């Protein structure tokens, strides 16, 4: 590529510092005592770092339970989204029945529907089905994803025709073609998409807020709100401690899959 690494480094490093600063601030606040948090002066590394906020966060809310709930829901939604988008994209891109353009447009258009429109009717439905405060109720309505179908359709369309051809000639049916040929060939795309689904669902707040009011069924973002009270005062230290802990799985998922993320969008090509 072009030969000017030093200029690039300068710009990138500056941008990185600016971008990462608030994250550092979050961790730094998690390590500070109230005295330091409200010191009113700027200081990144605490003078007297304390782990007390972390223990407070763990005891004041059932952190492990919240983690577990978030994990179950995130994994459930991710798996369901990956599966349903794969099937739908396979149909749109490869099987290509009549009407596929309309269906594709409908899927993609779901991205434009404001969540406030879907939230309450879905809540009422889940309530009527007696699925409030259950994992099912948390997972199922979140499974729709126009973004995933959009992306996977592009990915599948970019596969070389010879791949599927070989499968057909071998006498494979559509199901076998999908799982033995298409999915292995696009697994990096699927992994990437799954990571993004996971991170998105992990941080989801509004839907779990509605559906799980039981203390033990809350997910992490909802549970963390216990530290926020405009009436009694927000407990900043434990809040940031909880947030720092909540970041770990999501960040881990990204770092581990980073290789796949990049390669995948390459395979998707996003070229028609």
């Amino acid at each position, binding site marked *: 590529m072009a030969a000017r690494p030093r200029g690039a480094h300068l710009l990138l490093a500056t941008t990185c510092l600016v971008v990462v600063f608030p994250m550092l601030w979050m961790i730094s606040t998690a390590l500070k005592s109230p005295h330091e948090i*409200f010191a009113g002066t700027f200081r990144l590394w605490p003078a007297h770092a304390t782990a007390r906020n972390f223990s407070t966060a763990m005891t004041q809310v059932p952190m492990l339970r919240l983690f577990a709930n978030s994990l179950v829901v995130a994994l459930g939604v991710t798996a369901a989204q990956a599966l349903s988008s794969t099937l739908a994209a396979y149909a749109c891109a490869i099987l290509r029945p009549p009407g596929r353009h309309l269906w594709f447009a409908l899927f993609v258009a779901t991205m434009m529907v404001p969540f406030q429109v879907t939230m309450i009717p879905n809540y009422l439905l889940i309530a009527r089905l007696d699925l409030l405060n259950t994992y099912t109720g948390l997972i199922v309505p979140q499974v729709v994803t126009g973004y995933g179908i959009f992306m996977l359709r592009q990915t599948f369309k970019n596969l070389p025709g010879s791949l599927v051809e070989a499968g057909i000639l071998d006498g494979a049916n559509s199901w076998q073609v999908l799982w033995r040929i298409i999915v292995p060939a696009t697994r990096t795309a699927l992994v990437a998409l799954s990571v993004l689904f996971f991170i998105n669902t992990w941080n989801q707040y509004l839907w779990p*807020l509605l559906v799980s*009011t039981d203390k033990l069924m809350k997910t992490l973002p909802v549970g963390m709100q216990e530290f*926020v009270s405009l009436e009694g005062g927000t407990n900043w230290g434990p809040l940031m401690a909880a947030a720092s802990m909540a970041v770990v799985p999501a960040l881990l998922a990204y770092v581990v899959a980073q290789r796949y993320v990049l390669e995948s969008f390459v395979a998707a090509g996003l070229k028609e």
Partner: protein
Amino acid sequence: MAQLRKPLFYAALALLLALGRLLLPASAAEPVTIEYWHINSPTFGGPAVTELVKLFESRHPDIKIVEKFQPGVYTGLMQQLQVSLAAKRPPAVAQIGFNLTAYAAGQFPHVVLDKYRESDPEFFKGIPDNIMALGLFGGKLHGIPFGVSTPVMYYNPELFKAAGLDPDQPPQTWDEVQRQGQIIKQKTGKLAVYLQQPNDEWIDQTLIWGNGGRPLSEDGKRVGWDSAPAIEAMQMWQDMVQKSKIAANLTWEEGIQAFLSGHIAMCLTTIGRQEHMRKNANGFDVRSAPVPRFGGKPLATATGGNVLMIFASDPAQEKAAWEWIRFLLSPDGATIWTRGTGYLPPRAALANDPRYLKPFFDQAPLMKAALDTFPYAKPWVSFPGSRGLEITKTLIKAREEVLEGKRPAEAILKEAAAQANTLLSR
């Protein structure tokens, strides 16, 4: 003989069972389970709620309370309440903020509580009339006032000292605030005062009441924001921000943070925050004083906090809900509650009762200012009608515009009041 044994055996068994049912006590009825929704986070009364539930259940084994914390304070609770009502699964009892009570009373299905005046007169003794009135709308009792708070003026004695002022003599009138505020600004360079600016108009109403106005006319047809006392009070606030520049124009969270970190000398906000203030103040002991008066006019504040409303439709649940409410306002319940939150007890006498709350008030000096203000508490008027919540927002927007200072307060308030009055009539 063997042939007879089986039927004999069964006959004996049947007899035993029949006798058993007569002799043994009837099995305990299934406990009634009710949901109680509150805004008490772990640092704002959460443990008190847990304690209250435990104590109540030990005294009432036939009732089980499932308490649920709702994020987003009273507005957040209200939103969750609305959807749960739409799904026909509301909680039996919920805390409804005063500013939302008229809306809930008028627009959400709930139990009207006047009938308990006859069936349970004991409960109502000991609650001052001006407090009980907070749950009245259209002449009917819709909620029982439970969390009662007043605004107080927290202040930073160190900044006062640094300005050469006496920290034991905080300002008692708004003129004093401005006078001392100027001195603080000159001598220390710090801002002097912050009046809370949340997504409600509690302080705005406090100012209006304090200056002799009414937030809502007696007939409920006109808001009081364009009355002379209101205009004068809001103009004063605007001047403090824009002209003399001793007051800060910040969002609520920012203002509190600035006070706690020593950047602002005085902070007018709810007594509910007293524990938070005490724990987080950096480098100074927070003190409190009653809200300043307007010259010679009597002290008046809008009352903050919540009422308890019953949303249960099942009679057994309603009965259990009333028991729970009785307990919450009982001397035992109120003591735990007040200690955990800093809210004042509706049964005002408990504050001076050594068996109950006197010890707490004695060692919580910040509470004294609230206690002194209590007798002067006026309602936090919430606006009737289906557009009541929009009216509140209109008035909040007016305040935001006033503090930004691009136009004088009078013009802004007259416009806002006109809009609000139109909404009132819908």
